[in-house]
């Protein structure tokens, strides 16, 4: 029998505390945008009405989490919040050993330094900016082994986060298993638009890597959202709980890096979890240098407590249903208005296809950057460019010209209401309607690294 998906996604919570927003006028926004050099990263948050820059660290915590904040044990060594977190990670994810870090990239830094040797190859289901950077800094090279469907925004394949096992096998044959310290496997692949990996694919990946003695390291920042898609789309999982699915996902991997700022509903925090004692010991020694003693990892005690509680809340079926339901609600509204977006709709945001909307603006005039600026000017909604600006330049100085020119509308968890979603969709539709009148940008300041953060532009 087909599982009946509830259409309504009413929030399983009510509002306990609010943060006031400033409503701005078009003149105010034009001035703010000029000051920010047409880069949404450079806007001051007080000039933003609805902030969809990222879903990272922007969640609303629950009253339980706030209560946990008051129970912070700020002892430098052996804080009880650490032991609580350790217990929760074991219970929910099943990993044996835990090293807390101040955020996800702290865990990536340590793990890459421990496992990667110079000349190693790290296959993964699409890169992520900081993850790939840490792998490269440790002397490794990233190889993309995601299925081809992931690169096509219009393709509606349900598991666009899957690993192409043939591509992976080819890599193993080419370089040898001893050159591959681990496969970097992300759940809810961010750069593909929040697309899930299937349990079947994961099982096959486990079998293949087991045969060659290669570890699977799980980038698990949005594992619960991935579990939701498995529950909704994969045979045999309709009646399983998110909690059970999350645990099963983790069981096919050997360790994980986690930015708790996404799924786990906190504003700061992350960890490295691993089943291998030797790696754990080395990580525990290294974390002291970069992050803090291994029982706090650069976090206040209260933040570890909030994380422990947030992890438990994140695998609640009702919570995830409402979370993804809200994202899908926004995506469907946009589709109704004719706005072209990446499909299927992912778990944490809507990716609008700027190339399709602004075909008259060449990549040298930054269509996605332009569209993000236009949406802000229209309504004060802040989004992010994911196109030629983010892709940066090659070693020889030429621009990378990525296939995708996207504007990312990331939805913070539990923060905005349905009415906010309506405003976002309507504003995007308004910009879409006058798309022919929109002109591109030219870059007037370009920093050397990660230019998307600080580059400045002027309208043509």
């Amino acid at each position, binding site marked *: 029998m087909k599982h009946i998906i509830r259409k309504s996604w009413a929030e399983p919570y009510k509002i306990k*505390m609010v*943060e006031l927003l400033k409503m701005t006028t078009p003149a105010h926004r034009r001035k703010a945008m000029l000051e920010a050099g047409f880069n949404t*990263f*450079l*806007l*001051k*948050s*007080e*000039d*933003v009405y609805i*902030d969809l*820059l*990222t879903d*990272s*660290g*922007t969640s609303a915590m629950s009253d339980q989490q706030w209560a946990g*904040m*008051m129970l*912070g*044990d*700020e*002892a*430098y*060594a*052996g*804080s*009880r919040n650490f*032991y609580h977190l350790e217990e929760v990670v074991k219970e929910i994810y099943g990993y044996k050993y835990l090293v807390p870090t*101040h*955020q996800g*990239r*702290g865990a990536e*830094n340590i793990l890459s330094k421990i496992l990667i040797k110079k000349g190693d190859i790290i296959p993964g289901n699409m890169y992520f900016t900081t993850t790939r*950077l*840490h792998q490269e*800094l440790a002397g490794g090279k990233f190889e993309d082994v995601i299925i081809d469907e992931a690169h096509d925004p219009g393709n509606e394949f349900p598991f666009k986060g899957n690993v192409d096992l043939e591509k992976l096998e080819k890599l193993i044959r080419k370089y040898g298993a001893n050159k591959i310290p681990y496969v970097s496997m992300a759940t809810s692949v961010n750069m593909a638009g929040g697309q899930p990996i299937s349990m079947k694919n994961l099982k096959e990946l486990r079998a293949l890597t087991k045969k060659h003695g290669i570890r699977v390291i799980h980038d698990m920042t949005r594992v619960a959202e991935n579990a939701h898609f498995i529950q909704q789309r994969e045979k045999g999982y309709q009646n399983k709980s998110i909690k059970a699915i999350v645990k099963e996902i983790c069981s096919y991997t050997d360790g994980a890096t986690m930015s708790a700022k996404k799924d786990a509903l906190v*504003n*700061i925090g992350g960890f490295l979890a691993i089943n291998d004692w030797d790696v754990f010991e080395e990580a*525990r*020694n290294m974390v*002291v*240098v*970069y*992050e*803090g*003693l*291994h029982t*706090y990892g*650069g*976090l*206040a*005690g*209260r*933040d570890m407590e909030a994380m422990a509680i947030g992890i438990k809340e994140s695998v609640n079926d009702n919570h995830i249903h409402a979370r993804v339901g809200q994202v899908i609600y926004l995506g469907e509204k946009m589709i109704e208005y004719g706005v072209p977006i990446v499909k299927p709709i992912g778990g944490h945001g809507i990716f609008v296809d700027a190339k399709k909307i602004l075909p008259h603006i060449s990549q040298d005039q930054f269509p996605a950057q332009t569209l993000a600026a236009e949406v802000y000017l229209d309504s004060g909604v802040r989004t992010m460019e994911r196109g030629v600006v983010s892709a940066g330049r090659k070693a020889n100085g030429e621009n990378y010209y990525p296939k995708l020119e996207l504007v990312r509308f990331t939805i913070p968890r539990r923060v905005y209401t349905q009415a906010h979603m309506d405003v976002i969709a309507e504003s995007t539709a308004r910009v879409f309607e006058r798309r022919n009148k929109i002109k591109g940008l030219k870059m007037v300041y370009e*920093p*050397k*690294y*990660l230019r998307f*953060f*600080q580059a400045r532009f002027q309208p043509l």
Partner: protein
Amino acid sequence: MKTIIEPFRIKSVEPIYFTTKEERKTILEKANYNPFRIKAKDVLIDLLTDSGTSAMSSNQWAGIMQGDESYAGSSSFFKFEDSVRSITGMPYIIPTHQGRAAEKIIFTILGGKGKYFISNTLFDTTRANIEFSGAEGIDLICEEGKHPTIPALFKGNIDIEALKKTIREKGAENIPMIIITVTNNSGGGQPVSMQNIKDARAVCKEYNIPLFIDACRFAENSYFIKLREEGYANKTVPEIANELFSYADGCTMSAKKDAFANIGGFLAMRDLDLAIRCRNLLIITEGFTTYGGLAGRDLEAIAIGLQEVMEENYLQYRIRSIEYLTNKLIAAGVPVMQPAGGHAVYIDAKAFLPHIPVEQYPGQSLVCALFEEGGIRSVEIGSLMFGKYDEAGKLLPAQLELVRLAIPRRVYTQSHIDYVSEVIIEVFNNRNKIKGLKITEETPMLRHFTAKLNPII
């Protein structure tokens, strides 16, 4: 009036759990005679560190509730930036998740093999970060600073003559910066005088070497200058702090000390080029430039704490309460570092336990004895923390064997402190029964955090 009362009252409390001496013996054994391995719930009075252990004020907690968690351009960041700028006068402010992350960034950029970082005394994580980059750290504490029990006004000063000599020996081009730690933590929380900072500034100028301040306890140091240095009695603490930073090219700060925060730190500097390089690295390991790996609420708490810490009523109470404990111990004949420092009491373990040789870590032995007797957690600052081995595997001991009792800010009351002094005096009276320790397991770097030890019977 003689009694100096706390310029605050208590708004929220945290219970302490009591243990018996028998229980503590077992706890100690399970923790392999290393207090870093003891669970916090098994500690009665936690004097392991004053870092991140402060009680925040109700104003700071209100700031916590106002944290703006926007990824970019958070309004909490701008408040933080203004607050740091108002004190340091430096234009480029870079937040980090704590002090060692700020150090990690600056030493990764400026360090490397063949480089030397000279300081009055580098703290453990600072030294580790320098050595991790391949560079070497050199401590040049003034003569007064080397004698724990002889009082002097500014025992944290750097030895200016030795500084000049070392620069000539190593070559100015191999010295990326001079670092003055205020107050001098490893040397007993002793202050550095304004004159000494000015002199160091002049040397730095002559050789064209940048001067950085390790500013963790800048307010405590500024207050000592007000109390002890000629010409500063009528200046306010913010004025003194402003002047102190005016001689520096940059600073690193752990906001977990003199900003009453439980987490956080920053880098500040005057050089735009260097700031850009630091920010590039920041994004890789810490976070975007307007949050640096901190929640918005923590930026808010730091901004408020930095201003609160400079209030003179608070500093008077703070310095006086450290003095109170120190004087009690001196009266009982316990050998302590004199005069009292700004954030901790330092016991001279070598003089306390003359029957235990340095190879058996007298400091660590005393730390264990204090825990067993009264559930007090302290930390060794001696050969376990700073000792090294020569090529033959023989221990090269640290200059001093100290036990630090760091007092968290605004956390413990006078009766807690009275209890602490009673426990120390009790241990002192039975000191002949204390035995040395040997290491059974250790790591090559920062071994004191995780090392395992055993008593020598």
